[in-house]
């Protein structure tokens, strides 16, 4: 679907709070803009963002058209176990893009 950029520390100590940053290339078309021919440009946005880690969903967000193009979200997680942190973005068409990153916890 689109290019996603995620920033996850490669290593962390158990119990440490790590900062996660995630961004995806997406126009986030609001549906309120007019095209050159005067017709409104249909809405096309990412509706939902979710982050899964260590067996459950640890963070999620419901997005509205007021989010900027290429939505960027930075949040924190407690490092509990080594493994994959998965990121999923779902758009208006119901398509989901998933990306994951490994973090080693010592």
């Amino acid at each position, binding site marked *: 679907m689109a290019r996603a950029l995620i920033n996850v520390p490669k290593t962390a100590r158990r119990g440490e*709070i*790590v900062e996660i940053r995630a961004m995806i290339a997406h126009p986030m078309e*609001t549906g*309120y*803009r*007019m095209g050159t021919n005067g017709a409104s440009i249909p809405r096309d946005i990412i509706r939902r963002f979710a982050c899964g*880690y*260590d067996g*459950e969903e*640890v*963070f*999620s*967000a*419901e*997005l*509205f*058209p*007021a*989010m*900027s*193009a290429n*939505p*960027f*979200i*930075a*949040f*924190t*997680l*407690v490092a*509990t176990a080594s493994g994959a942190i998965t990121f999923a973005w779902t758009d208006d068409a119901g398509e989901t893009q998933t990306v994951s990153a490994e973090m080693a916890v010592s």
Partner: protein
Amino acid sequence: MGDPSRSHGLSLPVRRRQVLAAGLAGLVVVSLPRSALARPSLEEAIKTFTGGAEVLDGRVRLELPPLVENGNAVGVTIAAESPMTAADHVIRIGLFNEKNPEANVVIFHLGSRSGRAKVSTRIRLATSQVVVAVAEMSDGSFWSSRASAIVTLAACIEDLS
């Protein structure tokens, strides 16, 4: 044109009137500015989020640049004061605006595994306005913080009339 009523002389004026009426109705709808269509107010949007519960001031810090050059990407940081333990943590943080075409901006779902109740993102602001962040704690209380920004280049300029 197999339908005999269509070629009948009497039915023609009626159809023309109907077409005219339909056309006029269409014109009225089109000429309404988008901003005149119902948009829940800031207070209504927050009420929908809280389910009518009382919203107290404090425990939330909303960082928003006071002077925004480009309303298409405004960096915001929301931080809530919470120990973020299993017993006492932030469940949701909602961000609302006063004058965009839609009152909602984003709703974050957090939990005790977040470690810290701090989220950063980038939003759109259609004009100079107030932005409100509301945090829902695990004990069911709601806390809020508001900040206003002056926007020099607006997002979605077409909506400003």
